């Protein structure tokens, strides 16, 4: 296993950074209007928008998190793709995109204004803007932490004579400046181009990793023999909360993950929808999520399998990690900081499982133990350790660049979504409504600047408070789940009214909050994990609690929206043309041969997803 990077690895990283900035510079001259900057002039072809659509979701937290989940739960993690993404992507492409794209709204909050009113848009815009800043900041923080953990910047810092304690700050600053550079120069187009590059980097960086890992464990059969029992099955034990890795029964899984959370994200989150709204035509916009669904089905093999392989491999001893260094360090009479660090890492690796090390307390250097006194495993190290284990110099640089590209792409995606929602849905709506297009273009650039600055602040908040990521996930669940009901009713029930939507949305958020305040996952302490009013129910896993929070939020929003709508005055029919399904002519499909229609493509994708579920049942 590597302990240091070679100059060739750094060269690969530096070239990538130069490349993304170069793309920003090359696109700068095309940014003439606010539509160019925020919506790529609505000129992106379907394939490019499709790859950007998938990559906008493929931040490194996703890559690292899915591999970690693969190491913890096995192939069942693929439910986040085959059940928790594909049906929603098909639905948004076939049924919802005509209204997002056809209404000419520039953002999803703006669609809410067109369909309902200003207050519903305001609520959505403000919560979304805050979430994008926090997400971007957390991406920065996790990336800086990974750079520190993997000692990626150690050699250049040592060469420059700078203290190692600065690595964290420099990582944040460099990533922020590069992201700022290319988004500021090339707007959404630049972000989309880099997302496409990131897609290719992920494939180029992880495909050989999976091949080498499978070869090493004796192929798929060998992997199943060596991995924990049931790790090769997606549906084994899923019907019972006691045996399900998510601690939830089939209804909770299908309704919570398969419907509310996945549809809530893929069908309403502007971060991904923005990519489709930048497409060059309605046809391309509808095909965007369908094209994205194809790689999405295959990605579990790239990001989940490395985790499974990592846990199936034999646990290395300290001496196996790096024989000569290990010998020197373990026999050292007077250990210094470096030998201490190595000794801790070696102890953590030896106390782990396969290539998954035990968690080490950053302050004390001690291995962290769970309630049963067993070492807690640091599953997030699955991908990084696999890269270090299998990749020689050069390939290692490529693998790490793919990870860094994912982080930066995640940040850029959030920053571009933020600058659009800020400029159109907050600044233009509430601060300066009647300015020129040139002014809003300027504001978009300025929002990119202060959005990045706020993201840096958010990264330090995340570093200061361990629970900030849990909090953000909670806010996502609280806000996105009810939003799905608002959009579905808005698009498919013409009787839904503005007051119904607003009070429904608020009720959904309140219902999710109350559910969280009254329940707790097993083994957790009350507080950020739940039960901060009282503990009326204990879930076996935190995911079961999330799924049910989402279900309650969705149901509350749906019921309240319907009830309030029935008691308030509806919109006139002519105001709903292009915004509601029953009020909009459907002519796009009829112009294409049957196999090119979104419905045919969507059906093919669904059949393939069902087949994968059957094969890996």
């Amino acid at each position, binding site marked *: *296993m*590597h302990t240091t990077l070679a100059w*060739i690895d750094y*060269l*690969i990283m530096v*070239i*990538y950074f130069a*490349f993304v900035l170069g*793309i920003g510079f*090359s*696109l700068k*001259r*095309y940014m*003439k209007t606010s539509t160019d900057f925020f919506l*790529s*002039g609505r*000129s*992106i*072809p379907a394939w*490019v928008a499709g790859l950007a659509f998938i990559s906008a979701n493929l931040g490194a937290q996703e890559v690292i998190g899915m591999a970690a989940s693969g190491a913890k739960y096995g192939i069942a993690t693929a439910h986040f793709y085959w059940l928790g993404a594909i049906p929603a992507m098909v639905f948004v492409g076939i049924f919802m995109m005509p209204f997002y794209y056809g209404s000419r709204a520039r953002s999803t909050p703006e669609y809410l204004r067109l369909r309902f009113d200003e207050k519903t848009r305001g609520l959505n815009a403000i919560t979304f803007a805050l979430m994008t800043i926090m997400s971007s900041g957390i991406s920065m923080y996790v990336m800086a932490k990974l750079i520190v953990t993997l000692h990626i910047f150690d050699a250049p810092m040592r060469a420059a004579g700078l203290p190692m304690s600065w690595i964290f700050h420099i990582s944040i600053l460099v990533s922020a400046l590069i992201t700022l550079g290319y988004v500021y120069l090339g707007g959404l*187009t630049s972000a*989309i*181009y880099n997302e*496409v*590059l990131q897609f*290719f*980097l992920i494939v*180029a960086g992880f*495909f*050989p990793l999976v*091949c*080498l890992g499978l*070869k*090493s464990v004796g192929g798929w059969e060998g992997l199943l023999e060596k991995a924990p029992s049931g790790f090769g099955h997606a549906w084994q034990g899923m019907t019972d909360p006691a045996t399900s890795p998510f601690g939830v029964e089939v209804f909770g899984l299908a309704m919570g993950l398969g419907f509310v959370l996945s549809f809530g994200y893929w069908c309403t989150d502007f971060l991904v929808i923005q990519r489709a709204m930048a497409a*060059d035509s309605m046809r391309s916009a509808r095909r965007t999520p369908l094209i994205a669904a194809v790689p999405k089905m295959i990605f579990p093999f790239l990001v989940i399998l490395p985790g499974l392989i990592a846990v199936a491999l034999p646990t290395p001893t300290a001496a196996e990690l*790096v*024989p*000569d260094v290990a010998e020197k360090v373990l026999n050292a009479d007077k250990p210094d900081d470096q030998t201490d660090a190595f000794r801790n890492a070696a102890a953590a690796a030896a106390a782990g499982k396969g290539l998954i090390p035990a968690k080490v307390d950053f302050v004390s250097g001690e291995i962290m133990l769970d309630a049963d006194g067993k070492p807690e495993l640091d599953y997030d190290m699955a991908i990084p350790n696999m890269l270090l*284990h*299998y*990749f*020689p*110099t*050069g*390939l290692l640089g*490529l693998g790490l660049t793919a990870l860094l590209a994912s982080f930066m792409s995640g940040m850029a995606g959030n920053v571009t979504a933020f600058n659009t929602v800020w400029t159109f849905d907050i600044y233009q709506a509430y601060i300066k409504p009647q300015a020129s297009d040139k002014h809003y273009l300027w504001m978009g650039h300025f929002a990119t600047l202060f959005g990045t600055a706020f993201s840096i602040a958010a990264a330090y908040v995340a570093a200061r408070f361990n629970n900030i990521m849990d909090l953000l996930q909670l806010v996502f669940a609280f806000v996105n789940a009810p939003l799905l009901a608002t959009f579905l009713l808005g698009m498919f029930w013409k009787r839904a009214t503005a007051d119904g939507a607003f009070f429904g949305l608020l009720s959904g958020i309140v219902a999710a909050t109350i559910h969280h305040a009254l329940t707790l996952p097993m083994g957790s302490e009350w507080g950020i994990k739940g039960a901060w009013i009282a503990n009326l129910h204990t879930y076996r896993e935190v995911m079961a609690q999330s799924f049910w929070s989402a279900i309650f939020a969705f149901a509350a929003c749906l019921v309240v929206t319907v009830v309030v709508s029935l008691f308030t005055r509806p919109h006139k029919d002519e105001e709903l043309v292009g915004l509601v399904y029953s009020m909009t002519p459907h002519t796009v499909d009829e112009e294409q041969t049957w196999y090119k229609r979104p419905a045919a493509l969507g059906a093919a994708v669904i059949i393939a997803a069902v087949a994968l579920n059957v094969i890996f049942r």
Partner: protein
Amino acid sequence: MTSTSKPEAVSIWFFVGVLLAFYGVVITGEGLYHLAYPPERPVVLAWLHADLWWGALLLLSGLFYCYHFAPRKAG
């Protein structure tokens, strides 16, 4: 990308090709070097020379993209 009122932007696929070709050259070169001078502490399965074959594949894919989507051919 296409736009009737603006100069044609360089295709993203061309950028992809340039990046893959560059990485292909670097990684294949490193693979050849490892073949001639095996590292002192080889990684697991180093004898498969993954850097060599994967680097070559990246290079070929990159060259294909560069040729097929070169700016002169756009439009």
